[in-house]
């Protein structure tokens, strides 16, 4: 098939499989956090943003309130708005496509698209990764949720340890350089300090305020922290890929500047 000869589509599909697979861990952790099957599926179908979904169930499983879970998920979703601006400038979707594109605007579809240089490939990469991940992520969420509800006592299986590992794995690719590590440490310390004094869930929001203040007053890279959970071009460009994402995002800005 002609589509499969497109490099962006191939990258998009392989990133779909890699990302979709870890939907299993989301599904299993979600039902053991106390959400039911349909609540778990609603998060994957409607919210559809890995970090925010894990944040929501992470707050709930720690005993946090619904409003704290919603707040943490919403703050983590802010970066998708930034991706939307970049993709709008790159792809110019029109009509109903804009509303569909918005739903599949996440770390991985953005990274797959901005990693390409040809406009047609950027468009194919975005849709291949976006639609592919959406379908597989939801499928594997269902598999994980069904498997997880049959597990019995989640602690016996170390599922609380799985949650810890999942959050560290989401954080890890974003710790490139000294400043992101310093931000992570500052927010970790703020969290530990806040735990005994405020209700469950709120320490995460305290950390968000600390991180936002650092971002507002510092002068680091403007795309710091905006790395995908699974790097689509890892192995293709080795270390160069890290900088490539940044440059392409800068270029995306240039394009929009020309439009304005």
């Amino acid at each position, binding site marked *: 098939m002609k589509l499969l000869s497109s490099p962006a589509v191939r990258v998009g599909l392989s990133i779909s499989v890699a990302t979709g*697979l870890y939907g299993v*861990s989301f599904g299993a952790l979600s039902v053991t956090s106390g*959400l039911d099957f349909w*609540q778990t599926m*609603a998060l994957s179908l*409607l919210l559809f*943003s890995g970090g925010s979904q894990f944040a929501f169930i*992470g*707050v709930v499983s720690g005993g946090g309130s*619904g409003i704290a*879970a919603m707040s*943490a*998920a919403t*703050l*983590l*979703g*802010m*970066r998708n*708005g930034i*991706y939307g*601006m970049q993709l709008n*400038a790159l792809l110019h979707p029109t009509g109903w496509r804009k*509303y569909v594109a*918005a739903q599949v*605007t996440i770390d991985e579809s953005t990274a797959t698209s901005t990693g390409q240089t040809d406009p047609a490939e950027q468009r194919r990469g975005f849709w291949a990764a976006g639609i592919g991940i959406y379908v597989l992520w939801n499928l594997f969420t269902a598999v994980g949720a069904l498997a997880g509800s049959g597990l019995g006592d989640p602690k*016996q299986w*170390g599922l609380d*340890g*799985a949650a*810890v*590992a*999942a959050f*560290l*794995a*989401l*954080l890890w690719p974003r710790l490139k350089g000294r400043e992101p590590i310093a931000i*992570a*440490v*500052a*927010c*970790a310390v*703020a969290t530990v300090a806040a*735990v*005994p004094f*405020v209700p*469950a869930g709120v*320490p*995460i929001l305290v950390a*968000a305020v600390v*991180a936002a203040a650092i*971002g507002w007053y*510092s002068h680091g890279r*403007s*795309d710091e*922290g905006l790395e995908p*959970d*699974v790097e689509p071009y890892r192995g293709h460009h080795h270390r160069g890929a890290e900088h490539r994402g940044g440059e392409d995002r800068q270029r*995306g800005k240039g394009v929009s*500047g020309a439009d*304005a």
Partner: protein
Amino acid sequence: MSLWIWLLIACAMAYAWKLMGYFVPARLLKDPRMSRVAGTMTIGLLASLTVVNTVASGQSLAADARLGALAAAAIALALRAPFLVVVVLGAGTAAVLRMLGWN
């Protein structure tokens, strides 16, 4: 029931962020401050969620098998293991440590 309400609000807010990106005037992109805040907040929130899930038990701090899961995950990530392997190793480490009597 109230969890459903907050869950659906979270879904609506997530879509609102995404959609806003497509309707905000492109020149706002020239202000790098907003994307920097989005980026540092992502790092901060994920760091905080990692720590909360490792050492918090409600409103108190605890050192238990989850610390072992954190260490195992860090080693696996340093060795560039894929996401799912990291998660399974985290679970396995916590389960084994608990079996050995460390809560």
